[in-house]
C-alpha cells in the first residue's frame, strides 16, 4: 500500500523520449536530458544540498567536533541553543549539532541502498514478467499484488519485531521487501510497450537470444521511467525509515539517526521545540532535495512537459 512519492506523477506511461522529428540538433537521449537538466536552477540547488548531505554522511568529522554519543553531560540535557552549541543539547545531554550531523549517515545509506536493491529486483522481475508474458507474468504479477497489498508500517513492524536486535541491514531488507512492487509494475508495463517495437522484432529475426534482446534492445528503451521513480523513491524510503525509527521498531540506540532523535523528542517537544525542529529540518530538506532532483530528471526525460 505504499505508493512512491512523485511530485508530478505521469498520468500515463511515459512516451518514448526519442526525437519528435523537426527538432534540429538531434542528441542522444542521455545527452538531451543532461542538456535540459543543466539549465534548471532547482536541479543545481537540490544536487548541492545532496552533495553536502553526502559529505556529511561520509565524513561527519568535517562538520561535527564530537563523535556520536560523545561527551554527553546529563546536567545539560534538553537545554536550548547556546554559544558553541548552535543546536543545544539532546535528551541525553549530548551536543545536538554533532548528533544531528551523525544522523545523516543511516538515512542516506538506507535510502540509497534500499532504492538500489529494489531497483535491481524490479528491473529483473519486471523484465521477465513483461517479456515472457503468459504464466510467468501471471505468477509474478500476483506475487507483486500480494506484496503491494501489505500495509507498510504494520508489515515492517511485524517483521522487525520478529527479529529484535536487528541492525541497519535488516531495516534495509525489510524496506526492500515492502518497496519493490511499484517499480516492478512500471518496469513491466514499459517492457510490454517496447516488446513489439520494430527494432526488437528485427533483433529477434536476426537470431538474437532472449537475454540479448532483453538486455541490449529492450532494457535501454524501457529503463527511463523506472529510473525516475527510483530517484523519487530515495526520499520516500528515507521518510519511511525515519517513521520506523520514530515508532521505535527501526534502528536502535546507540545508532544515531534523525528518526531516533525525533522519537526521543516526542515527549518533550512542547517545552523543548529545538529537539523536534533540528532533526525534522535536516530530514525534510534531504527528502525534499531527492524529490526535487527526481522531479527535475523526470521533466528532462519527458518531452511532453517542455
Amino acid at each position, binding site marked *: 500500500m505504499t505508493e512512491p512519492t512523485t511530485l*508530478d*506523477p505521469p498520468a500515463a506511461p511515459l512516451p518514448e523520449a526519442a526525437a519528435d522529428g523537426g527538432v534540429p540538433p538531434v542528441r542522444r537521449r542521455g545527452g538531451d536530458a543532461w542538456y535540459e537538466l543543466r539549465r534548471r536552477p532547482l536541479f543545481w540547488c537540490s544536487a548541492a544540498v545532496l552533495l553536502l548531505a553526502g559529505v556529511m554522511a561520509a565524513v561527519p568529522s568535517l562538520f561535527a567536533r564530537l563523535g556520536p554519543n560523545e561527551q554527553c553531560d546529563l546536567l545539560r540535557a534538553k537545554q536550548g541553543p547556546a554559544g558553541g552549541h548552535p543546536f543545544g543539547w539532546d535528551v541525553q545531554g549530548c551536543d545536538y549539532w554533532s548528533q544531528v550531523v551523525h544522523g545523516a549517515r543511516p538515512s542516506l545509506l538506507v535510502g540509497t541502498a534500499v532504492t538500489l536493491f529494489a531497483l535491481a529486483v524490479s528491473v529483473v522481475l519486471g523484465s521477465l514478467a513483461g517479456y515472457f508474458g503468459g504464466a510467468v507474468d501471471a505468477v509474478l504479477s500476483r506475487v507483486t499484488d*500480494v506484496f503491494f497489498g501489505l*500495509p*507498510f508500517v*504494520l508489515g515492517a513492524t511485524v517483521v522487525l519485531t520478529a527479529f529484535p536486535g536487528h541492525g541497519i541491514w535488516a531495516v534495509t531488507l525489510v524496506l526492500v521487501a515492502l518497496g519493490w512492487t511499484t517499480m516492478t509494475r512500471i518496469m513491466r508495463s514499459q517492457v510490454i510497450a517496447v516488446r513489439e517495437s520494430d527494432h526488437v522484432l528485427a533483433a529477434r529475426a536476426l537470431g538474437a537470444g532472449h537475454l540479448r534482446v532483453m538486455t541490449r534492445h529492450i532494457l535501454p528503451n524501457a529503463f527511463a521511467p523506472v529510473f525516475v521513480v527510483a530517484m523519487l523513491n530515495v526520499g520516500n524510503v528515507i521518510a519511511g525509515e525515519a*517513521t520506523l525509527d520514530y515508532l521505535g521498531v527501526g534502528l536502535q540506540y546507540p545508532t544515531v539517526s534523525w528518526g531516533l532523535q*525525533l522519537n526521543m523528542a516526542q515527549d518533550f517537544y512542547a517545552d523543548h521545540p529545538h529537539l*523536534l525542529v533540528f532533526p525534522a529540518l535536516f530530514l525534510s530538506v534531504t527528502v*525534499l532535495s531527492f524529490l526535487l532532483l527526481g522531479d527535475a530528471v523526470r521533466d528532462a526525460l519527458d518531452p511532453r512537459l517542455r
Partner: protein
Amino acid sequence: MGRYTARRLLQAVPVFLGTTFLIYALVFALPGDPVRALAGDKPVSPSALAALHARYHLDDPLVVQYGKYLAGLVRGDLGETFTGQRVSDLLADRWTVTAQLAVTAWVFELVLGVTLGVIAGLRRGKAVDTAVLAGTTLVIAVPVFVVGYTAQLLVGLEWGLLPTAGTEEGWPTSYLLPGMVLGSFGLAYVARLTRTTLVENLRSDYVRTAAAKGLGRTRTVVVHTLRNSLIPVVTYLGVDFGALMAGAVVTEGIFNLPGVGQQVFQSIQLKEGPVVVGATTALVLVFLLVNLAVDLLYGVLDPRIRHD
C-alpha cells in the same frame, strides 16, 4: 462488464490468500511462546501450557494453523486473543475510530486536493499556481509525524482551535485535526496530480473542439476536461483509502486515538497473533475491494474505456 468483474474478483482471491498467509507466517515467526509471555515471570504448569497450546493450535504446523484460521474466517470468526476475548469484539470499536479518521482524511484529500489542483491548473504560471506547487512540495517532503506534532502544537495547544487528543468530542470535531494531518500527504499529491492532468488535457483536441463549438468555459472545464482529468486522481484516491486505514497508526499514536492501528501495534508487541492477523486481513480486504471499485469506475468516468 460482468465478466470483467468476475475475473477481477477471481484474481483477488490468490492475492488475498497470499497476503494473509504472509502476515500469518510473519506473526508465527515472532520469537517466544505467547502463552509464556502471557504468564510473565510466573511459572506455567506443563499441563496448562499443553492445554493452551492445544486450544490455540500452537503445536500444529504453520500451514495447518493457517488452514484452521481460514476455516474460521469463512464462518465469520476472527478467532480469540490469548486472554479469551473475541478478536471481532476487540476490533469492533476500534474500526469505527479508524474508519472515521480515514474518511475524514479522505474527504480532505478529495475536496481540498481537487479544488486546489483545479485552481492551480486553470491559473497555470500565476501566483496561485506557484503557491500551490511550493506548498504541496513542502507538505510532501515533511514526514507525517512532524506535520502531526507541529499541527498539535500550533493549532491545538497554542491557538486552542481544535482538540489535540482523544475522541471525547466525537466525530467530526475530534477527528478534524488528525484527519487533516493524516490526509496532508495525499492532499498535496492529489492537488498536484489534478493540476498536471488538467493542464495536459486542457491542451487536447477535444477541449479545443468543445470551445470551437461555442461551449462556455465552465462547461468545457467541468464536463469535458475535469471528468477525464479525474481518472488518475480516482486511481490514487482508491489506492490511498487502504493506505490511510493502514497508515493511521502514526496519526493515531500522536493524537491518542484508540484505533485499529494502535491496537495492532500493541498486539505485535504482545505477540497476539490473532489480533494482528485479523485486523490486517480486514485491511487487505478493504484495499482489494476499493481497488476493484476504482477499476470499475474507470468506465463511468471515461467513455473511451470499456471493459470487455
